């Protein structure tokens, strides 16, 4: 079977809009969480978000939007976009540059694209509101294209002239982790030489606040205190948006063209809880099986793992469930370091898996272990897990990244530092 490596990364995140910015935030434990102006109303009990800086979306009309300088986006590319597609377009641009891809390699029958997004609930609302209040004849020309979750791959395939296989993954908050796993499989089976894996989400009241309905969002108002995965005071997640892109490539292909390799994808696993629509199985059984599956696929033993980037969103039930899964995997082996980088970035929903896989690439390549921020009093129920509460000198060689989603979906991806062979 073919081997799979990561040769390029792109970031539009709450903690930075480039690799150097994200790296610095992770190393210096800088949070991307802020009081969010969209949540300012007295009727909104949620106040924090992992805001995406440098972009503005004052109206639903694309010609009112602004984005950072340096990206070339034509009017006909922008007109069909959602905010998440615009974030992704910028992150794609970064990843293509970092991977040193020529336009011919980007637009090649052996280069594909796997996307994950919940879609733009904001634009869906705006379009449907227009139709309901002004009639079908006033349905904007791009109403379908920028209302559906498929909007992300629709925009990127056209914008970057993708010629290989392209599709979207929809498995809630494990979507882009699924995308990475499936992309790796497509390369291992030699169905493609290269895949772009993209996770992207809007960052606004329409895609974050509906989670208030299940009391999943933190009510904390101090950006320095939440989210705080694994802490006794955790009270829910803090939403974020943005985009992360990974260039996933067949090893020999990457070596032949002298590509800069960040890390190797050793394998992955997935399993479902079969338990509840939104509540994770309290025993962590589904995530445990996903991690076992990933270890088996990667030919690894639990003791090989140095670091786990936990899904840990800072909800009361979710973090404990994940600790149970970790405990069952590592009870007889060296305990790996565990952290939730969501405590710095916020929870990116469909974006989370790609963002955290890209963060693992940085940790492996740059030799640092990300901290699990905002822990002042570790939950005793997590006390036997080696949670990284402050900076440590250890540099991981092999890492796992976990993602779980509504419906009890669980994905675990195993990655290894690239050491030249």
């Amino acid at each position, binding site marked *: 079977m073919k081997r799979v490596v990561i040769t390029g990364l792109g970031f539009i995140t709450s903690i930075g809009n480039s690799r150097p910015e994200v790296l610095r935030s992770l190393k210096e434990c800088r949070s991307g969480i802020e009081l969010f102006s969209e949540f300012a109303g007295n009727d909104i009990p949620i106040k924090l978000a992992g805001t995406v800086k440098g972009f503005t979306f004052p109206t639903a009309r694309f010609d009112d939007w602004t984005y950072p300088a340096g990206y070339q986006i034509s*009017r006909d590319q922008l007109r069909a976009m959602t905010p998440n597609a615009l974030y992704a377009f910028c992150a794609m641009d970064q990843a293509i540059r970092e991977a040193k891809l020529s336009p011919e390699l980007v637009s090649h029958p052996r280069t594909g694209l796997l996307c994950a997004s919940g879609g733009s609930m904001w634009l869906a609302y705006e379009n449907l509101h227009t139709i309901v209040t002004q009639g079908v004849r006033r349905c904007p020309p791009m109403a379908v294209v920028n209302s559906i979750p498929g909007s992300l791959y629709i925009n990127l395939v056209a914008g970057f002239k993708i010629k290989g296989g392209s599709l979207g993954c929809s498995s809630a908050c494990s979507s882009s982790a699924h995308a990475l796993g499936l992309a790796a499989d497509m390369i291992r089976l030699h169905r493609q030489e290269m895949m772009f894996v993209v996770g992207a989400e809007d960052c606004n009241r329409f895609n974050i606040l509906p989670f208030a309905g299940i009391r999943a969002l933190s009510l904390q108002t101090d950006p320095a205190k939440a989210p705080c995965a694994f802490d006794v005071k955790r009270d829910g997640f803090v939403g974020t948006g943005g985009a992360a892109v990974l260039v996933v490539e067949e090893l020999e292909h990457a070596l032949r063209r002298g590509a800069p390799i960040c890390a190797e994808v050793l394998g992955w696993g997935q399993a479902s809880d079969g338990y509840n629509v939104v509540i994770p199985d309290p025993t962590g059984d589904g995530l445990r099986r996903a991690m076992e599956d990933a270890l088996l696929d990667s030919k690894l033993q639990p003791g090989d793992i140095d670091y786990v980037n936990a899904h840990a969103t800072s909800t009361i039930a979710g973090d404990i469930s994940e600790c149970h899964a970790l405990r069952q995997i590592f009870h007889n082996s060296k305990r790996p370091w565990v952290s939730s980088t969501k405590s710095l970035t916020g929870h990116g929903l469909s974006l989370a898996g790609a963002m955290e896989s890209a963060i693992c690439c940085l940790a492996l390549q740059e030799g640092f272990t990300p901290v699990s921020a905002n822990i002042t009093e570790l939950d005793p129920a997590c006390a036997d897990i080696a949670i990284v509460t402050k900076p440590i000198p250890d540099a991981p060689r092999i890492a796992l990244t976990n993602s779980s989603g509504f419906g009890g979906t669980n994905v675990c991806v195993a990655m290894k530092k690239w050491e030249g062979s």
Partner: protein
Amino acid sequence: MNLNATELAEIQKELRRCNPETVAAAIRFREQGDSTAIPPVVYGLIELYQPATAKLSLKDANDETRLIEDLGLDSLALLEVVFAIEGVLKLHINNDELKEIRTLGKLNQFLRDKIVTAAPATS
């Protein structure tokens, strides 16, 4: 008939990226049904939606200028122009009618013909 404040605000919002002449022409058309106001509105909107890579600049265009081949509008941009015209001038262009509109002259003539049978809707 004078437009009310809401109608004026709608026109200004729809045409907020157009020049003042385009906005004034749209108001003149809506208030007076003046067909000479149609070309400035059409030109103003096409200018807004025309890609920078177009073969021909709008200032060099004439009635024979083709909307897609010469002015560089793709079929989606043409739909955007039609959508904006419908919103600003309060006219409706059917799918069958749209197929026949290939040139600037055809578009202007079509809109002039349209107002003979359908006066602009003002409240």
